């Protein structure tokens, strides 16, 4: 029996263990599902810097993907991780501000920004440090700390009979994952699907959200995306993060925004842009019935992958994910 390092993620990620449930043998991967019928549009738009007209590009991308946000209660979910405005850990404030403007322009009934960081408890100050308050109009009136919102249960989340989520999330008609394009030392990459970890309330499950580690990181990513199907993704790849992400990596200027309604297809496209084989990324393999991983089932709009592709440096454990 050969055990791979990532089989110990529940132990290592938390420094401790539930352990034995994850000690499974390495198996030959099953053939990848073709996913749902049809093709998924994914738009790749160039944005050389955060001072470009991001709202115009987002608007164009959303139109390309055929999203109708009229009358919807929209939750924008950025990726806020750490107090470190000098780096590229968090979704850039300009991307959040542009999305806020665009969804209002698209006729959304209400646009709220919400996040529940996994480690830091001071979400408002974290947002402030990431310049959200200074950049997004009426930020504080429209921001919800998802870690400390009121909660309700949903049934059958993963193997859990009942699981708690913030009421703001459960009341949203559309959740927009405003993710950052980063490598991740436990999951390989962190993109629009993993960004949904921030929907789990710390007030119930703690900081970090250790319950998700016990369910399993890929399993949790897929379970969250299976539960929340009313989603759209906008991935901030204007400047991504490579190496020892998602916190201690280094900036990777790429100059793109990637968006679409099928989060599996968006993440698969981001992987190809990053030089990662999405068919080797465990959570994407597990999510292949939810959306499209295979390139012939993704309708690429805007730029093509080859024109924006640039290999991201990977953590040594994930060198095997490199796209050949």
């Amino acid at each position, binding site marked *: 029996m050969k055990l791979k390092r990532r089989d110990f993620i529940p132990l290592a990620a938390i420094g401790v263990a*539930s*352990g034995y449930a994850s000690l499974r043998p390495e198996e030959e991967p099953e053939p990848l599902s073709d996913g749902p019928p049809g093709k998924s549009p994914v738009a790749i738009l160039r944005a050389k810097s955060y001072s470009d007209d991001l709202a115009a590009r987002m608007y164009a991308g959303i139109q390309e993907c055929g999203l109708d946000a009229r009358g919807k209660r929209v939750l924008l979910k950025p990726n806020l991780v750490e107090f470190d405005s000098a780096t590229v850990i968090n979704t850039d404030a300009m991307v959040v501000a542009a999305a806020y403007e665009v969804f209002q322009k698209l006729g959304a009934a209400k646009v709220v920004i919400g996040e529940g960081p996994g480690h830091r*408890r001071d979400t408002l100050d974290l947002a402030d440090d990431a310049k959200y308050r200074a950049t997004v109009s009426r930020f504080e009136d429209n921001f919800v700390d998802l870690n400390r919102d*009121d909660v309700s249960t949903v049934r059958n989340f993963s193997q859990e009979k009942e699981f708690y989520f913030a009421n703001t999330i459960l009341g949203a008609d559309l959740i927009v994952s405003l993710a950052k394009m980063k490598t991740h030392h436990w999951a390989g990459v962190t993109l629009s699907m993993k960004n949904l970890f921030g929907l789990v309330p710390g*007030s*119930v499950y*703690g*900081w970090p959200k*250790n319950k998700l580690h016990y369910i399993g990181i890929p399993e949790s990513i897929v379970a969250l995306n299976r539960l929340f199907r009313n989603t759209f993704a906008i991935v901030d790849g204007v400047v991504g993060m490579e190496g020892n992400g998602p916190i201690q990596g280094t900036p990777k200027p790429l100059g793109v925004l990637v968006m679409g309604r099928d989060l599996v297809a968006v993440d698969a496209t981001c992987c190809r842009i990053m030089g990662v084989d999405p068919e080797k990324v465990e959570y994407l393999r597990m999510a292949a019935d939810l959306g499209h991983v295979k390139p012939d089932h993704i309708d690429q709009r805007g730029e093509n992958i080859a024109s924006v592709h640039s290999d991201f440096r990977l953590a040594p454990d994930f060198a095997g994910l490199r796209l050949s």
Partner: protein
Amino acid sequence: MYLSARHDFLISTQNADGGWGYFPGKRSWMEPTAYAVLSLHGVAGAESHLSQARKLVHSWRQPDGSYHPSSQVQESTWVTALGVLLDSIDRDQRALQSTDWLVGLRGSESRLAVRLANFFHLTDIPLDLAHPGWPWFPGNSSWIEPTCHTLIALKKAASLHRSYRLLSRIQEGEIMILSRRCRDGGWNAGTPVALSYDLRSYPECTAFALLGLQGRSTGEFPQALQVAETMHRDTKSSLARAWLAIALRVYGRQPATPMEDLPSSRDILLTALQALGHPEGNHRLLHPGVPHPGGVA
């Protein structure tokens, strides 16, 4: 003015059920309620507010002594520590059963199968798994913050009733905290190293660790108070600064006093903690107030 403004804010944001939400107008939760109660403890005119709050807190108490974090959540969690803390301060004997529940709760990393896996090098966890702390949620692993909340509560409860089981469990938790210290001298959530990278400490976790280790010789965590003082000066997190002020004051340090006219936040937990950490605030309520059970076994 700083302190009275915060007390006034807390009194004005109390919910009709007697508790406090994390933000005004939100439903009541144990955490902001407990810290609002501690902040208002002994404040003239707050008696009826406190008695209403205590009633609500006790309505979250379960027959086994554990506490739910709110009416919306049907599982008992780490907040049981806050229930024990409040009951111990009130010298309410109900703390004893809740203490038993906490003493019996431990991080799942202490399971035999996990420890065996680590012993036989099936894992490479560079942590002491033999001394478990406490989890946020039963069935999960130990983390610094819930462990420290629990230690504060158990040390307080030891003033009502001391037993070998209680004192040895306190020691286990303390050893867990000491073993999880980051190389930079502070603490993070509980993982000082990951994939052979040193991870940096967090200011709020450093404050929790110091609070949890009260009663031990500071020689066992050299430089930690200086690290905390630097963090208190430099952190961008208001919540972390509030926790650090409390921690430093219980160790007799004098962190910079906030500007008297600093406006209250709409964050109720933060407001309560800022009041607790004020020089004239109730930070002493988080001091164990009893002799320490002893050194590391």
